C-alpha cells in the first residue's frame, strides 16, 4: 500500500471511530445521573426561577438526539462548544492544557524507552543474578499503583531532599522539565517495567532462533549478532508494546496530573466528568482518540521501517 493510500484509509477510519466514540460518550454522559446545574447555580442551589432559566439557556432538557446533532453540527463548523461550568470556550480550555500533557507523556515515553529497553537487554544478555534482580524490580514496578509511586516520589525527592517541586508544571523550558521530572518518572515506572519484561522475553526468544544459532556457529562477533539478528527481530514486539504503552499513558496521566496538581488534559477531563460538563468531556475524549489512532498509525509505519517485508497497513 502506498503512503497516501495508507494515510487516507487511516483518516477514514479515524472519522468513523470519532463518530462512534462521540456518540457513545455523549450517550453515557446523558444517561449518567447528575447535571452541571449545581455548579452553575452555586453551592446554595438556585431559586426555581433560576433553575428553569439556566436549564432553558443551556438546553439541558432537550432530547438526546437533538443535543447530539446540535453538537456534531457545531464541531463540523470548528466550534467545540462552550463549557457551561467555566463559561469559557472549550478550545481555550484545551489549548492551555494540551502542552502539559504532551510534555509529560513525551518525557515518560523517553524514560520508558531508555529504561525499559535498557534493562530488558541487560537482563536477557547478561543473565544470571542481574536477570533476577531486573525481573524482581520489574515485578515490583508493575505491581505498585501509579499514585503510590507519585506520593512516594514527592515525599522523598520533593519534601525530603528538596530536589524537585511538589506540584505544578513550571513556567516553561527547563523549569517545566524540572517540574515534570517526578511526574514523568511516576508515570513511566509501570510501563518501563512491562517493557523491560517484554524486551527481555523477546530477546531471549530471538537468541534461541535458528538463524542466530547459525550466526554463532559461523563465528560472527557477538555484538554484530545481537545488533543484526537479535535486536532487529525483537524490535517488532518492542515497538508494538511501546505504541500501546504511550496510548495507555494517557489514562495514567489522569491520576498523575491530580497527584502533582498539573494543568493537563487528564485533570481537566476528570473535573469535567465530575461536573457533567458535556462539551469538555466530549472534546477531550476526541482529542485522546485522535492521539490514539495517530500513534497506532505511526507504529504501523515503523513496522515497515524495521522489517521491509511487512507491507504498509497489512494486518499480519
Amino acid at each position: 500500500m502506498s503512503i497516501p493510500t495508507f494515510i487516507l484509509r487511516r483518516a477514514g477510519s479515524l472519522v468513523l471511530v470519532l463518530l462512534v466514540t462521540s456518540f457513545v460518550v455523549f450517550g453515557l454522559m446523558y444517561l449518567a445521573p447528575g447535571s452541571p446545574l449545581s455548579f452553575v447555580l452555586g453551592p446554595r442551589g438556585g431559586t426555581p426561577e433560576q433553575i428553569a432559566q439556566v436549564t432553558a439557556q443551556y438546553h439541558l432538557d432537550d432530547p438526546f438526539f437533538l443535543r447530539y446533532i446540535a453538537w456534531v453540527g457545531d464541531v463540523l463548523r470548528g466550534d467545540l462548544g462552550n463549557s457551561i461550568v467555566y463559561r469559557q470556550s472549550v478550545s481555550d480550555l484545551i489549548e492551555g492544557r494540551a502542552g502539559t500533557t504532551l510534555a509529560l507523556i513525551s518525557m515518560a515515553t523517553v524514560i520508558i524507552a531508555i529504561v525499559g529497553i535498557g534493562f530488558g537487554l541487560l537482563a536477557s544478555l547478561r543473565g544470571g543474578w542481574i536477570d533476577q534482580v531486573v525481573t524482581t524490580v520489574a515485578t515490583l514496578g508493575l505491581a505498585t499503583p501509579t499514585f503510590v509511586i507519585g506520593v512516594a516520589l514527592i515525599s522523598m525527592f520533593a519534601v525530603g531532599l528538596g530536589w524537585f517541586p511538589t506540584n505544578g508544571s513550571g513556567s516553561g523550558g527547563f523549569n517545566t522539565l524540572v517540574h515534570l521530572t517526578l511526574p514523568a518518572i511516576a508515570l513511566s515506572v509501570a510501563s518501563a517495567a512491562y517493557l523491560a519484561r517484554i524486551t527481555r522475553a523477546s530477546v531471549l526468544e530471538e537468541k534461541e532462533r535458528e538463524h542466530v544459532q547459525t550466526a554463532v556457529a559461523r563465528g560472527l562477533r557477538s555484538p554484530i549478532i545481537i545488533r543484526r539478528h537479535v535486536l532487529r527481530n525483537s524490535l517488532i514486539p518492542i515497538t508494538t508494546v511501546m505504541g500501546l504503552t504511550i496510548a495507555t499513558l494517557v489514562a495514567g496521566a489522569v491520576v498523575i496530573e491530580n497527584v502533582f496538581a498539573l494543568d493537563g488534559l487528564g485533570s481537566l477531563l476528570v473535573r469535567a466528568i465530575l461536573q457533567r460538563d458535556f462539551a469538555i468531556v466530549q472534546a477531550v475524549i476526541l482529542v485522546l482518540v485522535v492521539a490514539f489512532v495517530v500513534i497506532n498509525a505511526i507504529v504501523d509505519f515503523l513496522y515497515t521501517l524495521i522489517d521491509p517485508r511487512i507491507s504498509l497497513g497489512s494486518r499480519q
Partner: protein
Amino acid sequence: MLKPRLLIVGTFITASLILTSCADSNSGGAGQSTLDIDFSKLATTTESGAGTVDRVTWNLPYEPLSLDPMHTFNYAENTVDANLCEGLTRLTPELTEENALAESVANPDPQTYIYTIRDGVTFWDGSALTADDVVYSLERQLGPGSTTYWTDYFLNVASVEKTADREVTIKLTQPDVLFAQAMSTAAGAIVSQSAAVAAGEAFGTPRGGLQCTGPFSLTSWEPGKAITLSKNPHYWDTDLIPLVEQISFSFIADETTAINALRSGDIDGQYFYLPPAGLSQLNSDNTTTTYGKSYVFWTLRALQETGTFAQPEVRAALLAALDRQAIADVVFQGAALPAPTLTGPDYFGSGPEAELFQEALDSYNTDPDLDRARELLAQAGDISEPIVIAVQGSSAVHEQTVNLIQAAGQAIGLKIEIRVIPVEQYGNIYVDPKAREGLDGFLTTYYGNVPDPLDIYAIFTPGGAYNFTNYNQAGEFIEEARQTLDPVARAEPTIQAQELVTRDLPWTPLNYMPNILVQNKRISGAAASIAYLSYPWAATIGGQQ
C-alpha cells in the same frame, strides 16, 4: 562492576519508597493524633508581617469557576475575590462591620439606605468609582432572571438609584436587616460597569477578566495553572496597601499533595475548611498553623416532609443519643466542638446582643442522654421505615460521622441506612429535587456570611428556596427579626426562632469548626478568621523576621 551496584541501590530505593509511602498513609489516616486547640481563644489575625515580600504562593482547594463576585459563594472563589473586589461596607477579621467604599451609610427610615461613596477611589485601570458602578453592581443581582448566587439578600430590594453625584439610595419593600449586612460580603461587591458590560458573560473568567477596586488587582488567570494578583499601589485605604508584590494561587485539590507542598515550602499558605488528615504532619515543620474564629458548622439536614425522619421527635431522639464530642474527637481529630445550636459564638456580634445569644446557647446541653432519647422516641409515631442518610463518597469525614450516627440510632431502635453518593452528584442534592428523592437527610458543612445568627435561621423562612422541608414553625419570628434593625431588639425574636429550630431540628447541629490557616514561617499576617472570605486577608501579609 558499577552497574550491578546501581541495580542493588535501585532495588533498595524502590523498596524504601514503597515503605515510606505506606508509612505516610498510615500516619495520615489513623485519626488518633489529636490537635491541640484552645477554642476559647480562637484567633482573628496573625502576627503582623514585617517588610515587603516579592511573591507569595497560596493554595486553593480547587480552581474557582468564576471570579465575578456575583458568582462566588464558596471557599476558593471568595478566598481570591476578597482581595480583589470590595463592597460599600466590609467585615473585619474581628467579625465586625466597617465602612469600605462607602464613606458613610445613612438609614433615615427602616426601608431606606443611603450610601455616600468615598471620594477618590479608582478601579485598577485608573477610572474613577462612580455611583453608576454601584447602581449597576447591585441592580444586576435583582429580579428572578439574575443568575446571582446571592438571591436571598436581594429579595426585598425595590429600587437602587443614584440620588446625587456620589450617593446611591436603596429602597426596600419592607425592612430587611440582612440586606444591609450582606453588603459587607461578595453580594455587595462593586465592579466596574464598563468592564462588566464589555466582557458580558465572560466577566470574571480567564478570558473576560475583572475590574474592581481592591488592594490587589487581577494580573492573570492561566486556566488550570494559576491565578496571579499584583499589589495595587493606589489602593484608597493606606492601612491596607499590600506588602506583598505578587500573590499567586495554585489549585492543588489532593490534600496529601497540598500538605507536602506546604512542608516543602512550594506553597506559603492555605486555608482549610475541613481538618485534613495530614494536618498533624505539619506541626514540627516550617509552618505555623492558626485556628481562627469561624461560621462553619457541620450539620445533618432533613430533606423530606414525610417518613420517619420527618418527625421532629425522631430527629431530637437521634441527636440526644449522639455523642457530638466523639465526632469532634474522632472524626475531626480535635479540630471541632460539639454544637448545641446551628450558630456558635462567632456569629454573636460584638454588642450587648452577644450576651443574650451566649445566654441562650448556654441553656443547651450536648451530652448524650439515652433515656431522654428513648423518651422522645416513644412520643414519635411510626418509626418502622428506615432513615436514609446521604453522605459524600470518598470523604472520610462524612463516612465516619454517619457511622457514629448509625450506631447512635441503633442504640435507641432507629434503623438508619447509609447512601453513599459520589462527590460529583452530591451538589445536585441542593439543586435538583429529583436528586433528593429517597433520601431523608444529608450531611453537609455550611456557613453564614455575616455576624448574626439570623443569617442562618432565615433559611427557615416559609417558602424559602433552600428550606427543602418547608419548615415553617419559626417563620413569624424570622420575619420579625429580619425587620428589626436594632441588634439587641433583634436578638429576642432570633433566639425564639433558634429555640424552635433547635427543638424541631430541620437541620441537626453536629459540630462547630474553626477556621484553619497554615502559613510558611517566612511570612505572617494573613487574617485568621472566616472573614477571609470577604476581607482582604492577604493585604496584611508581610515577611517574618
